[in-house]
């Protein structure tokens, strides 16, 4: 008696495929065509993905799709509101239309000049808006100083409220010094 393929239920099963999923082994009887088609039918993608925190839906993954993301964000110039295609970066002279063709910016300043379009594009490409992670030390120090200034300003307010004027004067000088350091770029 011949066994029919578990997958297509029409052809005779000629292969026994062993699947290992989450450490459990199952055996399936398949015809050659279904076996070839499914490989060993390991639900790898599902198994792997279930262990990760899913990302925000991000646009498309392959680089050739950067083009379509750009098209979506920048517009095709046919719409009258697309007059922005002629906008020029005062530093490098690149227009938005040029960016659309080259898909690279002309200088770092373009990220400010074409902020609206590029921020939208970056969100589509990365699923994120704001940088997280390393920044050069001077920026890091600047952040720390700003944070400290905010803390001290709070303390200053409390000192004034409670009429501790000597303490308030000390805090005021400290804040001044930190602000001066930021201006001077000391770290």
């Amino acid at each position, binding site marked *: 008696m011949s066994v029919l393929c578990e997958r297509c239920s029409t052809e005779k099963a000629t292969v026994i495929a*062993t699947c*290992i999923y989450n450490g459990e082994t199952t055996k399936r009887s398949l015809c050659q065509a279904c076996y070839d088609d499914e490989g060993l039918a390991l639900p790898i993608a599902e198994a792997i993905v279930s262990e990760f*925190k899913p990302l925000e839906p991000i646009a498309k993954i392959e680089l050739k799709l*950067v083009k379509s993301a750009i098209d979506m964000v920048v517009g095709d110039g046919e719409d009258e509101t697309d007059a922005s295609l002629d906008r020029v970066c005062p530093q490098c002279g690149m227009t938005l239309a040029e960016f659309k063709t080259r898909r690279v910016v002309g*200088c770092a300043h373009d990220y400010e000049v074409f902020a609206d379009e590029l921020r939208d594009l970056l969100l589509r490409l990365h699923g994120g808006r704001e940088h997280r992670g390393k920044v050069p030390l001077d920026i890091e120090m600047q952040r720390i100083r700003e944070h400290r200034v905010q803390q001290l300003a709070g303390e200053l307010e409390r000192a004034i409220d409670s009429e501790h004027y000597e303490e308030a004067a000390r805090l005021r000088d400290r804040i001044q010094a930190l602000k001066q350091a930021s201006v001077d770029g000391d770290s």
Partner: protein
Amino acid sequence: MIPEEDWISRPCDWLRSGEQDGDVVVSTRVRLARNLRGYPMPWRMTKDERIEVESLISEQLNHANVGEELQRIRLDEVGEIQRHLLVERHLISRELAEGDGRRGAYLGHAERLAIMTIEEDHLRLQSLRAGFQVEDAWQQLNTIDSKLEKHLPYAVSEELGYLTSCPTNVGTGMRVSVMLHLPTLAQTKQIDKVANAAAKVGLVLRGYRGEGSEAIGDLHQVSNQVTLGRSEEDIRDDLERMVTKIVEWERGLRRLLLQQSRNEMEDRIWRAFGILRFARRINTEEALTQLSTLRLGVHLDILSSVDLQTLNELFLLTQPAHLQSLLGCDLDADERDQHRATYIRDRLARQ
């Protein structure tokens, strides 16, 4: 400049065998993209600006004490074969090799560090390792980057992080790529599933030569697609976890296939050996494909007469520029295919 013949005997550290997870993970690369404030991106630079920025970076690379002596190669001054030797060793990109004007490569000892200047971005720092060594590669680059930032005015924004030519690199400017050998996942048609899984967590599976390329010899690269909104640490963690999973699956399948169809596996591997041992002409792609199968055979203990070191050397030496340097003459494609076959035959006969 290193004489061509020296490249032949020079060890290529990222192809060394016996490193962590080396049965599946061939090599690891981390790259950081940086640009200098106040200059256009390379494609928009004038000749003078290229020279100015390249000299500035070169000077700081000298000063910054990057931990090892760097060898500077002015790509605008060396010949085509020399440039392609660097491409085949994965030290510089094809774009840099084939570009125009002032641009450079700076190579560290044992080729674990390779820095490109005036490529798509002003500066690209790359760290290469054999096997699965993301942390080690990252640490080296991070240290160098922190030294350089004191002297080079990087283009950075508080909000967007490091600003790069292409919006796909903005943020961390970091790309981590791990080259994987996945013969049984490919044989059982699971590569698409792996690619889908990777895509869902912001990673991408690419072919042997990176972006837009096909897999050759079942070699695939996994790298992060996302650079903005996730920290370097998050990106590395996700990639490491994904690679660990893929390695587990590939190993599981290798064991399974050996159990289920040992004879078929052995046949596949010995056929590859047969082709390499006796063929009279072979192109780069086929050589790479068959060498990959031998690599699998060695890792499965089916092939004991060939050692990994020889295979790794053949991976490199049979590529066009290396082959021509090895033979000391220019060859057309047809001649290369013949000489390649002869060289591989000789090497395998000596095993």
